[in-house]
């Protein structure tokens, strides 16, 4: 019923997750599956591209909270890009900008990973 789609692509050493549509308690498990796959493959550098995400509830936000520390413990991170203002406002309301990096464009997030990889 809920219109949601998640896909995964590799850009060099970084995994980019594209989320599309409505991310709620019904569709959040689909996103969890993708994160579990990344952990299985020991891929810890992740950019989530929100360009086509129309809606997010706390069930969706909870997925990022559940996985971010594991990524960071393994020298990776979850970075966010291409968020619409309405979706960003929900992250902001819960204080996410204190703990997560948000970028306007996916490329900026990828560059940040490349810089961190060199140091």
């Amino acid at each position: 019923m809920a219109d949601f789609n998640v896909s995964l692509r590799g850009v060099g050493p970084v995994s980019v997750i594209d989320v599309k549509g409505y991310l709620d308690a019904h569709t959040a498990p689909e996103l969890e599956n993708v994160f579990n796959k990344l952990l299985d493959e020991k891929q810890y550098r992740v950019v989530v591209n929100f360009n086509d995400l129309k809606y997010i509830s706390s069930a969706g936000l909870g997925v990022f909270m559940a996985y971010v520390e594991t990524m960071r413990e393994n020298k990776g991170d979850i970075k966010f890009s291409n968020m619409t203002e309405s979706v960003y406002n929900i992250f902001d309301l819960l204080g996410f900008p204190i703990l997560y990096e948000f970028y306007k464009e996916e490329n900026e997030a990828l560059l940040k990973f490349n810089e961190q990889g060199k140091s």
Partner: protein
Amino acid sequence: MNRSNKKFEKEFVVKSTTDNLALIREFTKKAAGDSGFSDETIGKIILAVDEACTNIIKHAYNFSPEGEITISTKFDTDKLTISITDEGKHFNPNSVPEPNIIEYYKQKKVGGLGIYLMKKLMDEVNYHTLSGNKNRVILVKYLSR
């Protein structure tokens, strides 16, 4: 601001499954739109109702799909009241502390964000225990605020 003297009441009953959240959002969108709220505020009201119903599905009914959720919307002059009633496990919202994102991060804690969001998004959020083992959460938004 689209002030008016209009009044309406509508009711929507669904089973307690997460795949009904999309229908719940559609129903809420119509009620908030008919009330005359801006698109931005309609988005806030939709999310608050989604969070309330998600909590009911998860906590009151523990993901059992047989529960019933009744959503009643009432608009009068400038006040939209959304009452959401279930017959599941009683829930005490005061037992949920206000989330601190940094503490959550340290504890790898997930959840509890929904109630906080509801309070941030709506003008009033009140919980009631009714006779017959019913629970009701009442969400209020004013056009004039």
